């Protein structure tokens, strides 16, 4: 009896889609950053459902996004690695998961993030930011192509303009 109730709660939380993409295991507080990075807040005619502060055994709270009839290239989806490095990407066809992908941190990030150095030229002139990603002690940081300073992933600010 309890099990049935649990299922119906789940189905309320995340209604199934026929064809499209499900992004799961997004940190709860990063939902809107992910939406912005993927450009889903602009010119998106696909049916989109999203939720946050959902219960997750792994993460405590998580966010989830479902987009109907939209499939992402790795180069597009890897951009969310900045804010959701552990997100899972499920490709859905005819209600079935046909492919599961993990996010990979790209070597270079163009646009998306702001440089945290206040003296960096990109914070004073209309210039699209460019970063190379670097790992130091399992910790991701972005090295600015222009001012050569590292921005810690914890201090990342997503720029207003989406790169997509």
């Amino acid at each position, binding site marked *: 009896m309890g099990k049935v109730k649990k299922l119906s709660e789940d189905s309320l939380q995340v209604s199934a889609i026929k064809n499209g993409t499900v992004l799961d295991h997004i940190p709860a507080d990063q939902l809107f950053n992910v939406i912005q990075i993927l450009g889903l807040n602009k010119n998106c005619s696909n049916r989109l459902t999203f939720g946050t502060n959902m219960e997750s055994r792994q993460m405590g709270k998580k966010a989830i996004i479902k987009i109907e009839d939209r499939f992402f290239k790795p180069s597009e989806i890897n951009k969310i690695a900045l804010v959701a490095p552990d997100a899972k990407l499920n490709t859905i066809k005819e209600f079935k998961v046909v492919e599961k992908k993990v996010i990979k941190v790209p070597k270079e990030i163009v646009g998306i993030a702001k440089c945290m*150095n206040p003296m960096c030229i990109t914070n*004073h002139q209309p210039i699209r930011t460019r970063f190379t990603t670097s790992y130091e002690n399992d910790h991701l940081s972005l090295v600015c192509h222009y001012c050569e300073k590292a921005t810690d992933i914890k201090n990342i600010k997503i720029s207003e303009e989406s790169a997509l």
Partner: protein
Amino acid sequence: MPKSLISISDFTKEEMLHILDVAAEFEKNKSQTFLQGKVVACLFFEPSTRTRLSFETAANRLGARVIGFSDVANTSVSKGETLKDTIKMVSNYVDLIVMRHPLEGAARYASEVASVPVINAGDGANQHPTQTMLDLYTIKQTQGKLENMEVNMVGDLKYGRTVHSLIQALSYFSPKFVFTAPKELMMPQEYKNFLAERKIPFTETADLMEHINTADILYMTRVQQERFTDPIEYENVKNCYKLSADMLTGCKKNMRILHPLPRVGEIAQDVDETPFAYYFRQAGNGMYVRMAIISYLLGYR
């Protein structure tokens, strides 16, 4: 995109050694006017005396003509023209651009929009690669080689861009470093990581006398007021080191003192008279090295 010099890491070890050889050639014969008919722009968005005059003299000695500005007050920049537009416009007129800008990354950006080579003459606290090349030239001139030097860097190792770039450049030549700084101005972790990855030994101290007698090069720096955001922090450290002649009695004979200049209080006047003082010769080397870099980027050497 033409080859530019923005960051010292834009040059390979071979290119650095080539520039040093060419600079030595210019030191022997400083009037070689093979750039007659060329025009060099010196765009100084931030004031500078030494660097600007040295670049302008270098271009003139090579026979090139120089245009530019040394202050943005009388230019379109003060009307709000973007850096991109200024550089695009100047690119149409000249064969090479030398630029200094107060913002970090400005020169890299300029090199991406320019159709001619760009030389970075300083972008805020970031890079000043021609200073690094003249430091290398001076080390080689005083020691006869670049390999296996013990280089003791003193003063502001946190904000001082010259020491950061010099570490990168010397990393090809099996150096040993001593970093002498008060704890507020110690070498940032990213440069210590850079050295650790390359297995280059370094030690840190706050005491100038501790390693002074084993140094081959004593690289003094000024604590730059303009880099501090907190005036109290500046007051606490501004007079942290003062090198005087009596401190040099136990030094190695070959030891030479370098300083990117201008100095304020960190080297006493009586040091100037010792055989160890080399900072004025060092500044003079800037012209030969800049002649070499201009000639190289324009494809003449």
